[in-house]
């Protein structure tokens, strides 16, 4: 199981689905109002320096994951201590995304059913996928991305009659701080979350360039998210969109071609759930792999069920209601995630570079 290897295209598609997973459902960067799509686009490109740092960390030690890199460079004790925040972050992210989808299903389809029921079912599917291994998740991504791409194209074409380009105007009328806040939110959710892929890069074939994988995935996903946000604004209008919990779902429910082709939101819900399944599975896999390595176990499969069940309990405990969930996503998450997504990776990167430079100098002196 630990010898599983993913092809470059598979991991790229997995990252794209991971990024669009819950972002398509709950949206991001709401602070910028009608210019949300611009701030999402800006966040895509402004997140690239941080993403390049993730790439650099991964490319310094090809074929190794973050915890191995930390152990190798800082010793077993400090390395393992440094890996704990990343394991916690992956676990917390998995629980949060599971709750997002639990609330989504419970709001749109099963309002009378306790939300634990869809959450447990969803979690069990993810647990099975993680137990099957990263190769299975990668192969799932390969097929799911086709479905989602077709869905995005068809649904957007059908939604053209409902789009009002005037809803996007006037452009850039808000104060700069609102845009900064919006970009910050859009960076932390979803682009910065890709930090957990550092814990999975031991499963990527060595011949693939980490830079190519990460950068192409970030740019494609960023464009999809920005376009989806622009579509939502054009269809719903900025005020309605800000008031909606699930803007994409509401925008697609407006599709009505000749009173015949309507209720397309069900098709889209399936696409959302597929992307969500990939996101939760990847986060759970990272948490489980990290946990296994933290305790010095070679194989992670045995820990998937206990950690997956803990994730279900945690996600149920996280918030009282959907309002609290959105408050957390918009006001708390960007600040909470910042140390995991920026401060720790930058610190690790600087330490690795200094160590590498000192080693090279020492070698030169010896020669």
């Amino acid at each position: 199981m630990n010898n599983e290897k993913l092809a470059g295209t598979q991991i790229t598609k997995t990252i794209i689905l991971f990024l669009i997973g819950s972002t398509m459902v709950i949206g991001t960067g709401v602070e910028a109002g009608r210019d949300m799509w611009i701030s999402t686009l800006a966040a895509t490109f402004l997140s690239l320096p941080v993403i390049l740092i993730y790439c650099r960390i991964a490319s310094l030690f090809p074929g190794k994951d973050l915890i191995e890199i930390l152990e190798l460079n800082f010793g077993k004790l400090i390395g393992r201590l440094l890996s704990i925040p990343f394991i916690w972050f992956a676990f917390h992210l998995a629980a949060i995304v599971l709750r997002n989808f639990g609330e989504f299903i419970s709001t749109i389809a099963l309002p009378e059913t306790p939300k634990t029921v869809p959450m447990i079912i969803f979690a069990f599917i993810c647990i099975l996928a993680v137990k099957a291994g990263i190769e299975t998740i990668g192969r799932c991504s390969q097929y799911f991305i086709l479905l989602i791409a077709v869905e995005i194209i068809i649904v957007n074409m059908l939604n053209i009659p409902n789009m009002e380009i005037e809803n996007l105007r006037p452009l850039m009328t808000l104060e700069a701080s609102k845009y900064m806040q919006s970009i910050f939110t859009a960076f932390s959710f979803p682009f910065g979350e890709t930090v957990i892929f550092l814990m999975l890069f031991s499963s990527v074939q060595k011949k693939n360039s980490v830079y190519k994988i990460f950068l192409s995935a970030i740019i494609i996903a960023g464009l999809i998210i920005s376009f989806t946000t622009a579509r939502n604004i054009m269809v719903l209008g900025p005020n309605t969109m800000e008031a909606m919990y699930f803007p994409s779902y509401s925008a697609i429910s407006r599709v009505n071609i000749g009173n015949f082709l309507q209720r397309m939101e069900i098709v889209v819900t399936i696409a959302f759930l597929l992307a969500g399944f990939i996101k939760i599975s990847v986060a759970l896999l990272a948490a489980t792999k990290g946990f296994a390595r933290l305790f010095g176990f070679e194989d992670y499969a045995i820990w998937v069920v206990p950690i997956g069940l803990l994730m279900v309990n945690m996600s149920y405990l996280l918030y009282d209601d959907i309002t609290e969930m959105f408050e957390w996503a918009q006001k708390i998450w960007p600040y909470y995630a910042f140390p995991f997504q920026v401060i720790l990776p930058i610190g690790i990167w600087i330490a690795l570079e200094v160590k590498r430079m000192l080693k090279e100098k020492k070698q030169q002196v010896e020669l």
Partner: protein
Amino acid sequence: MWIMMIISYITVSFFDLKSTKDKITTGKLMLYIFLMAVSCAIGIANGYVLDMPSPAEPLRRMVLSITGK
């Protein structure tokens, strides 16, 4: 409800451990049982305690106090 919860956790653990191809040592088994017991206890408490403290609440308060919002 709690009896059902315990039975379902025991059933899941039984089938999960049975299907594991990896060698199960005593240390692994103890950690596994501990994690399942914690998970089961939280699950039961979720059903009986009305205002279970959320693990996100201290983090939320900390972030709000830092940002001053």
